[in-house]
């Protein structure tokens, strides 16, 4: 009886401790239909990208997924040219507070502190590339 009570108590009281990952992607958005179909990884982001940035077609240039831990600094390198340095400042039940620095090759473009909720992506408008736009997407998974 005591054991059953203890298990039930722990199940109800334990904080969410599953390990989360930070996924980042470098995306090329354009209105010219590419030769390859849109990758499934980007399908969920397509409506928002179309509405915010005005592009219909997406190409995944690179992506990377990295496990997140409290008070940790990681390098997130979705592509050779664009990458992030991420410092996890705080973990909470629904979100992470991170400080990220976006680099284009050896130059820092911006530094930002973001409260990133699970499944609520961050879109960063990058440089224009040819007839389209480079976008960076980060999401807690």
């Amino acid at each position, binding site marked *: 009886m005591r054991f059953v009570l203890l298990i*039930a108590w722990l199940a109800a009281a334990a904080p969410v401790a599953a390990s989360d990952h930070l996924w980042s992607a470098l995306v090329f958005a354009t209105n010219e239909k590419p030769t390859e179909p849109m990758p499934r990884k980007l399908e969920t982001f397509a409506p928002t990208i179309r509405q915010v940035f005005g592009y219909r077609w997406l190409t995944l240039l690179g992506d990377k997924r990295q496990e997140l831990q409290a008070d940790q600094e990681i390098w997130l390198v979705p592509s050779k040219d664009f990458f992030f340095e991420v410092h996890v400042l705080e973990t909470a039940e629904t979100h992470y507070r991170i400080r990220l620095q976006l680099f284009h090759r050896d130059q820092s473009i911006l530094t930002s502190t973001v409260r990133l*909720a699970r499944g609520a992506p961050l879109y960063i408008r990058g440089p224009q590339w040819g007839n389209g736009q480079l976008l960076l997407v980060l999401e807690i998974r």
Partner: protein
Amino acid sequence: MHSEDDYNRWIEGRMDEAERIAFERTLADSEKDDAEVWSRLKPRLAVPDATLPNADFLNHRVAEAIAAPPAPRLPEWLRPSRLAWAGATCLILATLTSAWLLPGVFQPLPESEFLSKVLETEARADVSAYAFRAPNSRGVVIWTVGTEFIPLEEKVQ
């Protein structure tokens, strides 16, 4: 006169208390046949002065009933229905205790908890950046202006 079924039910303990007492009272008129069986059976009778009827099948059934080892029975508290009730009670108690001690666990979190938010952004000198909520989404956008154009001929990887 009792039927064989009555005797079987009596020996196998399938009579209720009143029926059993009434039945054993009637045995008082019966003829004792097997002294040994009877002496072992007598302590079990609800009516101590009852006597055993002279019936072969009865002697046989009594001997069988006495000789057979009692079927193992689970302790009362291990019966499945008791365990099920105990489990359900434990779950309810754990839930109520948790709700009392940790009220936040059972309260829905505000919607803002599930939204991403840019708290601070600083871009390099030649770039400006501002943030806004992505429409119809829980996501957020950092919009940069001033990043250099990359010609299509230049490879991005």
